[in-house]
């Protein structure tokens, strides 16, 4: 259950619209069901009243939308940013992907967002409505009279259980209290996989990646994947690839995608959130983050605007690729 309510956000948005601070609002719009919330642009108070929602299903990271939504608008756009979104916001500013002057950022607190597949696993199919009671979630399905009660630890998304920061690193205005960077256990799963044998790791990823249907949802939601033209869509890139024909191409796509966002990925977890096949794609990104932290010192993409990512930097004393393995073997 979010501490902040829909009404507070609508009031804020309406006030900023009416005093002319912003000309439009990037917000969440309710869909057919309570859980399929989509990002949308609102321009009037009435539209907000009609469609704006804020719930445990508002996980979408709006930062990426600013790249396209700030073009060709008069005035500024209001955007609501959860703490993790602010990192992507800064990273995109570092990469000059949108004009800061065009944006009015309101930081909002976040209690963690729900993972609908986790909810569904408990409630069963046919979810008719979702309500909240205290911090619990009440899920009514078509097949049950009584709503199923689900505790946060059972419905929170993985990325929220391992939330890395409740601190807003960028905003014009903050609603509620700011939090702190959290010492999370987000690298535990990567470390566990590292401790397996190569055969076990290969089997794990073979199983995960073979489910990929190349819907491109991960790429389309990723705030680091904002290329004007993706290499996979570009015949001149040499690796144009629209659908994975075999195991190699499943791997190729995900390795290259993870490599391209390495050092720029803020670990927002959108890739795994949107994956319809529930592939733990964030583990690939976290592997790069963990490695770079280990090899070159702690680095959080987007913590500040203008930082230099590890892969576009160097020191003369860096580890050799071979030493990387030697070190890990001695640690193990």
């Amino acid at each position, binding site marked *: 259950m979010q501490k902040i309510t829909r009404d507070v956000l609508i009031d804020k948005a309406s006030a900023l619209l009416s005093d002319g601070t912003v000309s439009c609002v990037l917000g969440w719009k309710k869909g057919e069901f309570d859980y399929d919330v989509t990002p949308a642009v609102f321009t009037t108070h009435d539209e907000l009243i009609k469609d704006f929602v804020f719930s445990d299903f508002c996980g979408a990271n709006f930062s990426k939308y600013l790249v396209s939504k700030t073009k060709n608008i008069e005035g500024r756009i209001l955007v609501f940013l959860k703490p993790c979104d602010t990192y992507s916001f800064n990273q995109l500013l570092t990469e000059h992907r949108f004009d800061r002057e065009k944006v009015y950022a309101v930081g909002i607190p976040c209690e963690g967002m729900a993972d609908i597949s986790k909810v569904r696993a408990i409630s069963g199919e046919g979810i008719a409505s979702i309500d909240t009671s205290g911090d619990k979630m009440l899920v009514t399905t078509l097949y049950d009279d009584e709503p199923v009660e689900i505790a946060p630890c059972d419905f929170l998304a993985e990325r929220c259980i391992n939330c890395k920061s409740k601190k807003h690193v960028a905003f014009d205005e903050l609603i509620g209290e700011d939090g702190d960077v959290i010492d999370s256990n987000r690298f535990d799963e990567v470390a566990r996989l590292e401790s397996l044998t190569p055969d076990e790791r290969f089997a794990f990823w073979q199983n995960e990646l073979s489910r990929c249907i190349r819907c491109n949802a991960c790429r389309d939601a990723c705030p680091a994947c904002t290329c004007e033209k993706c290499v996979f869509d570009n015949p001149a890139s*040499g690796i144009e690839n629209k659908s994975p024909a075999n195991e190699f191409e499943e791997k190729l796509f995900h390795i290259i995608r993870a490599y391209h966002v390495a050092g720029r990925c803020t670990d927002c977890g959108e890739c795994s959130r949107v994956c319809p096949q529930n592939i733990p794609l964030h583990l690939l990104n976290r592997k790069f983050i963990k*490695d770079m932290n280990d090899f070159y010192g702690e680095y959080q993409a987007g913590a500040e605007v203008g930082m230099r990512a590890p892969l576009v930097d160097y*020191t003369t004393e860096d580890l050799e690729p071979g030493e990387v393995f030697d070190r890990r073997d001695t640690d193990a």
Partner: protein
Amino acid sequence: MQVNEYKPLIVAFCCNWCSYAGADLAGNNRLSYPADVKIIRVPCSCRVNPMFILRAFQRGADGVIICGCHPGDCHYTSGNYYTRRRMAALFSMLDFLGIERERTRLEWVSAAEGAKFAATMNDFVETVTALGENKRLEDLRCKK
């Protein structure tokens, strides 16, 4: 009795200024290494895109080795430092996916190190031969 002895296919990316010259020196000194090694000349080791490495594996390479100037000696002052970071990250990721880490290597070979070039190639070929065919990052459509 095995009729066809397994021969690995090795792609070596060599920077023009040090390692390619080192390979030339190995030739000048007639220091032999297996013909399984095929060299591609690049201006600097930092020109090697991870895409090229994956492409080589896709098309049937069993091992990929990147050679550049020793750290501090880069013709372009800093190119090999970027290579070192990129390859450390990429190789570690390939290992994470369960692909044999011995199939990828980064070595610094100067223009004066013909002997090192030959020794490195001999060693790499031996290592990859011991591993056998690349099965984990192959594209069956590209197989003969």
